[in-house]
């Protein structure tokens, strides 16, 4: 018999080496996440995938599944904590959705919808982060970076280019472009690189395609992220 654990009271089978998030997904249960991606090792930075195991909070994207464990995920308590994390992400950047090309296709926003976040609640930081429009095909709007490192991992591990990095710590953390000038135009990034297409929010944007799909017809206008992510494997 396959080994299993309990996920919100339901048995979920798992293979040795699978994380809670992987096993839960394979069994058809969605766990909210932002920095996890099926093609990369877990990063464990956003904490949206937090679940409770035996009274302790753990990141389900990084925590190995174990026989007999009892995992709580879709509970009012955990979802309230996830909402608070989203609210912090919103106030730490400049997220003005109505003016953002990613609106409707953005995972941060879609999770906010799913978790019924109607307000960012905390005082806003309104940081000063100028954009980089130097590249002919790709725009960088640092105001929206949530430091998930997906672009960093994609560029390093798939594109083999190392275009992006994260620099600084705490409040000073920021996305870095690996060029002597610090400008995107002075890297080898191409518009069809995975790094240019993986950002879950509106930082790395293709030029000349913004707002092509009207509001109301975009990805998460059509279906919530918990449905979309399970169908599309992202």
């Amino acid at each position, binding site marked *: 018999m396959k080994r299993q654990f309990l996920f919100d009271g339901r048995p979920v089978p798992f293979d040795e080496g699978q994380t809670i998030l992987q096993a839960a997904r394979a069994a058809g249960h969605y766990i909210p996440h932002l920095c996890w991606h099926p093609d990369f090792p877990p990063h464990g930075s956003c904490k949206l995938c937090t679940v409770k195991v035996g009274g302790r909070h753990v990141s389900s994207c990084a925590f190995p599944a174990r026989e007999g464990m009892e995992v709580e995920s879709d509970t009012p308590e955990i979802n309230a904590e996830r909402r608070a994390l989203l609210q912090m992400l*919103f106030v730490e950047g*400049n*997220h*003005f*959705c*109505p*003016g*953002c090309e990613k*609106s*409707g296709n953005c995972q941060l*926003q879609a999770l*906010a*919808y*799913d978790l*019924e976040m*109607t*307000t*960012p*609640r905390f*005082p*806003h930081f*309104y*940081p*000063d*982060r100028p954009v980089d429009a130097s590249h002919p095909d790709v725009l960088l709007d640092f105001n929206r970076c949530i430091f998930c490192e997906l672009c960093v991992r994609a560029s390093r591990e798939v594109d083999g280019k190392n275009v992006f990095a994260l620099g600084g710590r705490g409040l000073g953390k920021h996305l870095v472009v690996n060029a002597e000038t610090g400008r995107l135009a002075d890297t080898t990034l191409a518009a069809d690189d995975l790094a240019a297409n993986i950002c879950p929010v509106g930082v790395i944007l293709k030029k000349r395609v913004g707002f092509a799909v009207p*509001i109301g017809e975009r990805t998460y*206008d059509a279906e*919530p992220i918990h449905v979309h992510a399970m169908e599309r494997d992202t």
Partner: protein
Amino acid sequence: MTEPSAQEKRPEPARLRIATASLAGCFGCHMSLLDIDERIFELAAKVEFDRSPLTDIKHCGPCDIGLIEGGVCNAENVHVLREFRRNCKTLVAVGACAINGGLPAQRNHLDVGACLQEVYCYREGLDGAGVPDDPELPLLLDKVRPIHEVVRVDYFLPGCPPSGDAIWKFLSDLVAGRTPRLPYALMHFD
């Protein structure tokens, strides 16, 4: 002639009083309120409007519900917002600007003095013009703030603007005494 029954004699329940205001916003949320179309008659049967651009009353009295559109960008906004908070039992932040400062807050990482100079002094065709300083003009704040950073807010109705349907669902819940809740299709930040 028969006497009216006790049922018929009972007075109409007092209608809820609603006030609305626009701070640093574009009036889009008020336009969206009008987008509830003919349902406005149903609403009018249940509520009375106090201070609002729709009534042109300048100061609100005691109200049940206050709907505020727009963020806080100057001293007058602070004043109006505080008056609303004092008078309204339930205060609702309506739309992106009231909730996170919205478009006006995109000046927040800039120096407000430099902004004013840029707009009134350095633009082509404005030679000799200065930053307006009429005492009638409310003093600008250095940052545009969401309203919950100034007063306590009871509910938030997101959208830029929230659709007529979202406003209708929200108000129907509130007027009926339910906790307002938007279904997924009406939850929009844009």
